[in-house]
């Protein structure tokens, strides 16, 4: 018994010794940095559970004395905020954006990956060049266009553009589709597949992981977007979550309701956290591939 314990601790020491000094210094630095970086998250979670009185206490209490779970339900019951409605709007916009982006971008990417035409490399350059086009530089004519179509204060202008392909996603999917072997398509053609079925029945089922990456990132971008909905949405019941939360800060309350705002923030990052939990591998891969965080 004692011998075993001794052996165990000797192993421990050996394992410790294997770590070089630089690794231990690195560990300590990373630990301090991580604690610093995660402390605002802790602050956010605890504030969301504090009463209005306790949230203003300085220094901040590490753990709420009373857990005010009511903050979360107040978001949905307080009729001045319309949080539930805005949450629904955000879900509608993001889900339809994901659907639009997946369908259109994979369709276009398939064209770029499988067919050649005289202008195909020029057009692909054009796709890539739109990546550099800053949205603020083109938002005014886009806004006026949708105004003239009578789509002001509606969710449609936030969704519609995604049905025409997103340059990032076209690029990403084209890279993936190009890796699929030609033999596959020849076999499909011999079996009498139409070109559309080569796309729909052959390519898409093989592209699951790549499509998942596209779905995750188009969801996040659309979910977090503030500038576009700020331009288009005027009435509180049409706001998406980011607009609604920014408005919560500036109006109605004499004192900024930080506990409610933190509760709202937590609920608003929940879908993203869920995506991360479910598809961490795709998530990380997507960040590395697109370079967008």
């Amino acid at each position: 018994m004692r011998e075993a314990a001794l052996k165990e601790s000797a192993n421990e020491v050996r394992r410790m010794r294997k770590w070089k000094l630089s690794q231990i210094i690195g560990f300590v630095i990373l630990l301090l940095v991580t604690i610093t970086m995660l402390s605002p998250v802790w602050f956010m979670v605890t504030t969301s559970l504090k009463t209005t009185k306790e949230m203003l206490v300085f220094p901040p209490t590490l753990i709420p004395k009373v857990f005010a779970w009511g903050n979360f339900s107040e978001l949905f019951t307080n009729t001045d905020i319309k949080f539930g409605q805005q949450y629904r709007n955000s879900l509608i916009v993001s889900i339809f954006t994901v659907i639009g982006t997946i369908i259109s971008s994979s369709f276009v990417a398939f064209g770029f990956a499988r067919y050649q035409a005289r202008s195909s490399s020029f057009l692909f350059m054009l796709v890539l060049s739109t990546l550099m086009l800053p949205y603020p530089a083109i938002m005014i004519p886009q806004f006026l266009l949708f105004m003239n179509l009578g789509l002001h204060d509606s969710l449609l202008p936030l969704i519609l553009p995604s049905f025409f392909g997103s340059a990032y996603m076209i690029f990403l999917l084209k890279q993936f589709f190009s890796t699929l072997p030609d033999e596959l398509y020849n076999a499909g053609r011999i079996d009498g597949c139409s070109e559309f079925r080569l796309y729909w029945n052959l390519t898409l089922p093989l592209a699951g992981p790549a499509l998942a990456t596209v779905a995750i990132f188009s969801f996040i971008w659309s979910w977090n977007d503030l500038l576009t909905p700020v331009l288009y949405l005027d009435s509180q019941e049409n706001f998406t979550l980011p607009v609604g939360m920014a408005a919560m800060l500036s109006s109605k309350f004499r004192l900024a309701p930080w506990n409610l705002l933190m509760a709202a923030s937590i609920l608003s990052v929940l879908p993203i956290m869920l995506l991360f939990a479910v598809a961490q591998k795709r998530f990380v891969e997507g960040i590395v591939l697109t370079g967008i965080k």
Partner: protein
Amino acid sequence: MRGLFLLEKWLENAEGAVLLKLSKGQRRESRYFYFFISPWIIGFIIFALYPVGASLYYSFTDYDIIHAPVFVGMDNFKELFHDDQFWNSIVVTLKYTFISVPITLFLSLIFAILINQKVPFSGFFRTAMYFPSMISGVSMALLWFWVFNPQAGLFNYGLSLFGIDPIHWFLDEKYALWALIIMSFWGLGGGMLIFLAGLQGVPAHLLEAARLDGAGRWKTFWNVTFPMISPVFLFQLIIGVIESFQVFTQAYTITRGGPSYSTWFYVYNIYINAFKNFRYGYASAMAWILLIAVLFITYLIMRASKRYVYYEGGQNR
């Protein structure tokens, strides 16, 4: 005879080149090409080409939506030249960009290197440092507005542990922009993941060869590791700069451009002029300047990088 033969040959080639360059199969292929990319072509015309052109046209007009645009020539640009708010927005945006982007890049590279040397619990650190990046946009802005709260915020509490007096972050024009810069470091996790992937892609045999040649850690990093990840570095730099030129969320949610215009970012200025002051023509002129600035900066970085960026499997492009 010989002349005739040559003529015939020339005709054949010319025909091939001009009239029948595409075989039947190729024509069929290009039909499918255009069929599949047609959604993008339509979208490109409506949501990119037209807006770029229209905003150039509007930039030479006075336009308030209610009345038709009135052509005013270069007046908008002349006015911009004397507009203090315009110049201030450029200074604010550049200051933010040139402080935030390099430091964020530097820190994310350092942390990626630390994690990559197989410290204990490296998997945990990777996730933990990326975690904050999931809280972005307005949620992040709200959280940090609260963290920087002068009376009850976490940041001043942290400072008080070091005996530093409370700072009125977003209420003080000297500190507001700095608070936004500090806030931007919080999102370094994404960049760190990208660098980490880059570092893991450095071939082990190169590092081994450097070690055998007697290169120290520092030399190995500068002469082997860094050149190998330099394309990643360049890409991140470009994206970082383009993103910082377009900061809007923080200004809109937290500071509303204040106090005393100290966080009056360029895009916020466009937004206010177009959608609050209804000066669409004037704002379009600014939008076009932004477009050119983004293209120009990208070009500059690419040009400067020609000397320093190493692309594997090809000469320096």
